[in-house]
């Protein structure tokens, strides 16, 4: 691609840039219409100690029409507000699973970066390179990780400040930002 107006084009958001962010972005950094590549099918959370799925969302199983996908719509489509039972803050180890479908053309290099913040402070950053994705494939990724023990005070602080736990998820195809989602988390 030509290098016209480098700084204003949203396509120029790079992984290196988002890895430096220290707080949630004010705006979405790319239009919804750029995602011609993937569709999320499922997301779930497992408490590893009991092996129980404690949270699950699934896309209704209707066939994806890649040629005529409706990519219009507002930012509410890419903003999710989760409310979890406060128990979630006591899990020692969790597994988060993402299932996604890939377009008929496949993807050469797919990468996800997710930044989690509490009260504007970075808590955790995920950076995962899926690399190549097979045309028309359905792929699953589970990340299993331990959570630190929170003090009662920290738990209370998170419960008392709904909407202060936020994340930005950035998805890159060949190092170009193609999707940006936001989420907020409350515990009650």
């Amino acid at each position, binding site marked *: 691609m030509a290098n016209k107006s480098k700084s204003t084009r949203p396509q120029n958001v790079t992984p290196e840039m988002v890895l430096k962010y220290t707080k949630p972005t004010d705006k979405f950094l790319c239009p919804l219409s750029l995602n011609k590549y993937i569709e999320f099918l499922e997301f779930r959370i497992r408490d590893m100690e009991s092996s129980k799925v404690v949270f699950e969302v699934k896309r209704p199983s209707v066939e994806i029409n890649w040629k005529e996908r409706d990519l219009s719509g507002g930012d509410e489509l890419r903003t999710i507000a989760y409310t979890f039972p406060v128990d979630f803050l006591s899990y020692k180890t969790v597994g988060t699973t993402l299932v996604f479908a890939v377009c008929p053309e496949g993807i050469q290099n797919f990468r996800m970066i997710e930044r989690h913040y*509490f009260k504007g402070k970075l808590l955790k950053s995920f950076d995962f390179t899926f*690399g190549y994705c097979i045309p028309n*494939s359905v*792929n699953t*990724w589970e*990340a299993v990780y331990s959570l630190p023990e929170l003090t009662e005070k920290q738990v209370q602080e*998170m419960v008392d400040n709904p909407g202060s736990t936020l994340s930005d998820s950035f998805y890159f195809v060949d190092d170009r930002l193609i999707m940006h989602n936001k989420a907020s988390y409350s515990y009650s």
Partner: protein
Amino acid sequence: MGLLTVLKKLKQKEKEIRILMLGLDNAGKTTILKRINGEDISTISPTLGFNIKTLVHNGYKLNIWDVGGQKSIRSYWRNYFEQTDGLVWVVDSADRPDRLEDCRRELHSLLLEERLAGASLLIFANKQDLSGALSYEQIEELLDLRSIQTHHWHIIGCSAVTGANLLAGMDWIVSDIASRIYMLE
């Protein structure tokens, strides 16, 4: 993904290991991966792409990649070779002779891959719970494993259904990789 708040940052220099699980379709790759992670194994459908687990094992960060093994997608395997530290080759020990011959050929052609040259090789002779299953010694023979000079290899009989020997196998490959990494340091 990753919703829960993690206050502790991962260690900067955390070691990362990449394991690639391959084998013919129906060998039991996905069942093994789910079994060692304590997941329900009653509803597994054929893998139409990849299935990745990122987890911590013996102090290492493990990325295990299970890639579908149907003939139509085997040609995509090569896209996943880069940076592989360990190859887990899964065999259905009760498979038909012609499929076992396919299995031998696919394995030996993988071993010629330059990008897999440094990888440790674990062979899971899976489905040992079935009465018709060949022993791991017989699988070793049929797959002509003794001729392998280029890779550290190890074969172990296992069952994804009973869980027998799965962790022993994973332990072998992780330790083998780890000892090579230490030697390089």
